């Protein structure tokens, strides 16, 4: 008897919870999936503002962490269940696949309307990340497929107070690699930690290595290597790998760098335990939260060569795409236009300490951020090169550098290993 009652109760509860209520709205609701935890309150504010302005409800849904968000978007894409606006969080080839599968709306017409008014409001490098040029290697028709909502750069920062303690000029951080390496000995002698960064996560190592590759051999040779025309065993590449060995030998790298997660690196720098950090412009917000009195500045990675300019990675930080199958395409595009307008971008920049994607909002950002913004002149990004390196090679590259830093392999060994995997991948591509 009791058992039966339990079963009935269970059944009733199931039926109550099993039905998801559906409300019909007379005005459309735009649903936007995002992963930016830090910006959710700001987004919600803007959504409310837009609703009072136009009567259209904007539903920002947060799904964090970004790893799981990425999977969610892909699962939804498979089930053809994407929301009106979403982000892709991957590499250029991911965007290409999404476009080919018909998930992403082509925004070129909207961007170029009214004499390119929307297009020109952005930093060209921010837009480039979401753009496919003519004759790209991804097989996509030329066009713009995403809207950047902020930009970011990845540079080095230095602690002014600690530099002064070392006897160096706090307003003139090391500009060349030899200067940088010299500081290493002083840092070790003083018992401090030198450079911290999240190099337990491979992509940050790849980033710096790539920066130096651009500096040593120039963009064209790097792209040629990706295309398979130059080998990773080329002397210039060995120079790139050797830089990491030099850094390790000079003592400039912090202890345990290769197992560090970026959040730990940020703590260390914020607590003034490290002199240098390699981090992205989002760090301004992080450091502010951890140590409001931190005196620091931004700098480019110290040059290893004068042949080519130093490069850093920069471009769109986060971008939104419009679902090509959405029932509210036009409304979604209108909202995104409003979101990337000068005022909204300035609001986002001040509320969340991120760099705005809209050029005209730059005047209103705090000084520290402005230092990062100036780096945009040197910025490049894998998503704008038109070619992508195979992920197996990228992994081997990063893990190889980790091995160099812990002294397990030599630059030549790593170069040979990476080249071997590269050749295997090239063979596989040719066979396809």
């Amino acid at each position, binding site marked *: 008897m009791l058992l039966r009652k339990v079963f009935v109760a*269970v059944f009733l*509860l*199931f039926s109550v*919870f*099993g*039905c*998801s209520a559906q409300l019909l709205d007379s005005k459309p609701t735009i649903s936007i999936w995002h*992963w*930016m*935890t*830090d910006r*959710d309150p700001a987004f919600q504010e803007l959504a409310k503002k837009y609703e009072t302005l136009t009567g259209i409800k904007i539903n920002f*849904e*947060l*799904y*964090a*962490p*970004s790893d*799981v*968000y990425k*999977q*969610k978007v*892909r*699962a*939804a894409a*498979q*089930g053809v*269940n994407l*929301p009106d606006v979403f982000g892709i969080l991957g590499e250029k080839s991911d965007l290409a696949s999404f476009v080919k599968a018909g998930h992403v709306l082509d925004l070129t017409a909207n961007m170029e309307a009214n004499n390119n008014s929307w297009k020109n409001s952005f930093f060209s490098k921010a837009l480039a990340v979401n753009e496919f040029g003519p004759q790209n290697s991804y097989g996509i028709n030329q066009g713009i497929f995403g809207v950047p909502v902020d930009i970011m750069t990845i540079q080095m920062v230095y602690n002014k107070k600690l530099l002064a303690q070392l006897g160096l000029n706090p307003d003139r951080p090391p500009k060349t690699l030899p200067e940088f390496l010299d500081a290493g000995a002083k840092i070790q002698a003083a018992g401090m930690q030198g450079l911290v960064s999240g190099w337990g996560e491979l992509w940050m190592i790849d980033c710096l290595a790539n920066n130096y590759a651009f500096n040593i051999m120039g963009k064209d040779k790097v792209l040629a290597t990706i295309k398979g025309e130059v080998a990773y065993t080329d002397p210039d590449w060995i120079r790139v790998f050797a830089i990491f060995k030099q850094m390790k030998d000079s003592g400039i790298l912090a202890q345990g760098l290769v197992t560090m997660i970026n*959040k730990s690196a940020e*703590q260390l720098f914020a*607590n003034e335990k490290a002199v240098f950090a390699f981090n992205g412009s*989002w*760090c301004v*917000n*992080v450091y502010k*939260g*951890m*140590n*409001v009195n931190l005196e620091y500045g931004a700098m480019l990675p110290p040059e290893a060569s004068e042949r080519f300019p130093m490069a850093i990675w920069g471009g769109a930080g986060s971008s939104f795409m419009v679902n090509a199958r959405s029932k509210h395409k036009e409304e979604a595009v209108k909202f995104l236009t409003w979101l990337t307008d000068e005022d909204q971008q300035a609001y986002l920049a001040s509320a969340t300490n991120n760099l705005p994607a809209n050029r005209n909002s730059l005047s209103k950002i705090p000084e520290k951020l402005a230092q990062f913004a100036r780096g945009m002149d040197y910025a490049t990004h894998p998503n704008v090169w038109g070619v992508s390196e195979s992920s197996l090679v990228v992994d081997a590259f990063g893990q190889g550098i980790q091995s160099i830093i812990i002294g397990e392999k030599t630059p030549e060994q790593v170069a040979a290993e990476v080249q071997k995997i590269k050749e295997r991948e090239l063979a596989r591509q040719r066979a396809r």
Partner: protein
Amino acid sequence: MQHALYYKSKKFLTNALIHLFLISVAITCLYPLFWMIISSLKTQDFIFKDISLIPHQFHFENYANVLRENGFGRSFVNSVIYTSFSVFGIVIIASLAGYAFSRLRFPGRIVLFYMFMAAMMIPIPASIVPLYLLLNKLHLRDTPVGYILCMISVGLSVSIFLLKTFFDRIPRELEDAGRIDGCSKIGIWWHVALPLAKPVIAVVVVFNALNVWNEYILALIIFDSRKFMPLQVVLQIFQGEFVTNYPLLMAGLTIAALPIIIVYLLMQKYIIKGITSGAIVG
């Protein structure tokens, strides 16, 4: 006289050593808990500067902030519902199946059991996408029922394995007694086997409760609506993309750990002397 003294002091020494051993292990277990609670009472800028175990100021408002967080209360209730229903489902379904594999004869019994065991050993990290598509087809995707069914499925293999192994060890005489008394098979299962299996069921409850309570990846992917999200998903909000609000995160994790500890406290007393020793040895 000397003998007794030697015996007594030896017993004292062994007991002392045993206690020393237990206490040192206990300290390593308690330290992270203390660290978590103490961190939850600090502020963001102090949390890594000040590594002492006793903070200078106690910021209890962190807990209030966490509880006030949008959706915290509702997601807490959601987690309780998902965990309860999943665990209840698993216990009933797995004990039925475990009992059958152990005590009943039917063709294909061995094959089926090995299949369940194999499932225990072949985890499929990539199975989230097919589950998503499957639930989509069944129109169960953005629903609690769908999620609970997935959770039940995930916990079945290990639970069936545990229960079957346990049922194997119960002497048949006890069931025969039941059968002679005119009990049906279900009756024996309910009145004889289950009560005897209390310790194992307690382990199954704790194991599955922990898994379901801590799950968040599947929930994030198959639920779209905020109102269905479990607690762990909401806790991710404190682990921001760039800025992690550590004190709030620790406060949230502390609150999240409490129900599971309560479940464990309730269940672990069934593991004490759950079996009447007389009935086993007879």
